[in-house]
């Protein structure tokens, strides 16, 4: 149980760290990384919660996998926007 708690706290800490970064940082790439840290935090919480009973809960795992897919595609899209936006700014200069 303590192990579950440890991962839970760690996940929440990552989530808070990511949220803080998303709010406070300005460079697009850093903000994208922040969102990913947030995501990892949530997924860690979910994986930890899956072990709250003796048998690991497969539903939670399925949810995490789905979440990962969403996160990856969103990150790709965000990177594309960030890079093109950066380039157009350089062009203007």
């Amino acid at each position: 149980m303590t192990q579950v708690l440890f991962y839970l706290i760690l996940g929440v800490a990552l989530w808070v760290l990511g949220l803080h970064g998303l709010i406070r940082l300005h460079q697009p790439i850093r903000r994208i990384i922040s969102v990913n840290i947030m995501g990892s935090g949530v997924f860690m919480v979910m994986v930890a919660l899956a072990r709250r009973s003796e048998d690991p809960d497969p539903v939670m795992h399925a949810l995490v996998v789905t979440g990962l897919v969403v996160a990856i595609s969103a990150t790709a899209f965000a990177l594309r926007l960030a890079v093109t936006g950066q380039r157009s700014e350089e062009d203007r200069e």
Partner: protein
Amino acid sequence: MTAALAALLIPLFTALGLLLLRSRSGPLVILTSLATLAAACWALVEVTTSGPQSLHLGDWPEPLAIRFQLQPITALLLVFTALIHLLVAVYAARSRHCRTRDTDYWPLSCLLQGSLNALWLSSDLFNWYVTLELLGLAAVALVALSGRKAYGPALNYLLLSLGASLVYLLGVALIYGRYGVLDITLLATQTEADQSTRVAFWLMTLGLMLKAALWPLHLWLPKAHASAPTAVSALLSALVVKGPLFILWRLWSEAAPVELAIETGPLLAIAGVAALLLGGWSALRTPWLKSLVAYSTVAQLGYALMALGLLMHWQLPALDAALWLFVLAHGLAKASMFLAAGELQATLGSKRVSALRGTTETMPVAMFAFAVAGGSLIGLPPSGGFLAKWMLLEPMLGQSEHWPWVAGILLGTLISAGYVFRVVALAFDRADPVPPDFKPDRFAHWLAMLPALVVWGLALVSQPLIAWLTGATP
């Protein structure tokens, strides 16, 4: 249920088809949009005659299944979405000034409609997360169609939207960890007002508020909506922000423990009043036309938030009707307003409010559409906005201890009148009118007028509509 499923699948397959065929055909989308509308209407008829229905995807048993649920209000939202989508599609295909004609607008808008319809139909917490993400990605891509200048606001929108989803998701994870279910109907029977439930609901609420641009988490909206192409702004303001609002409503009116709802309600209602005032104030101050319209969205969502908050606090199902009337009236009026604003600024070649001097002479129809839509936002009788306001005012004035909330409505009305007539009064200026760059496009102007007339026309069906909404919501 078949009809509802068709309303979900037609736009989805249209989007995929367009991508696979490398086609960007507007007329095709209009045709499929018509089909979606027909399917949605059919679903509405079905649900009115034979009651709510649900469908377990893949025939999985109860706790594991993903359940689609067709309620009366869902069916109404399906029809509403299809109507707005069709209207905007006709505009996008036909207007001379619309810069989205041969672009990715077509598949993306279909994807947007598909994900929104999936959102209306879903009824479990995680499925909503997925549909929210789909909706967000499609919306951001649509904003980015404006070109590189819009990439900044689009990226900001995307990141905040992702962040908001993760806030929501953490709440969902806590709920699942506590109760082991995701389906909202199952959840409703189990929730208790303990500490972890409270935290989970607040997290979900915060995430959804950020997604719906509800005050004080609205800062991303004006830039994103104002920098998008006209057709997209109309879709975003009229439809997309209503998605998270719908989830919020289902969460709090069905799943949340009553004590928790009573306790959280006032906070939301106060945020609603603040949105009305501060959003309205920003709309009064901004020099840009589309920003003004976008800020007015922030302000008007305040009404909906107020209705939701008070609904939770007083546990009054009568306010459901007010909430959904606001959503319908605002969606129609805002679509009209954004189309009119887009036409006006494209024809005049300036994005400033001050460029509208004398437009009642040069572009009477577009300006009239703007004013008529504005009338509904102010809540002038007998428009749809008025009906909603009336439904909200009635329980407020009914008991003397609720009277203080009336001040919010009063100030909100005056401030919306302020920003609407700020534009309308300028349009009557004949001293030095701004000459238009192009010949006005009459058809597009009438298209902008259409939803504004519909929102005033709600007066003709007001009584059955209100009765239906009061009876339709659980």
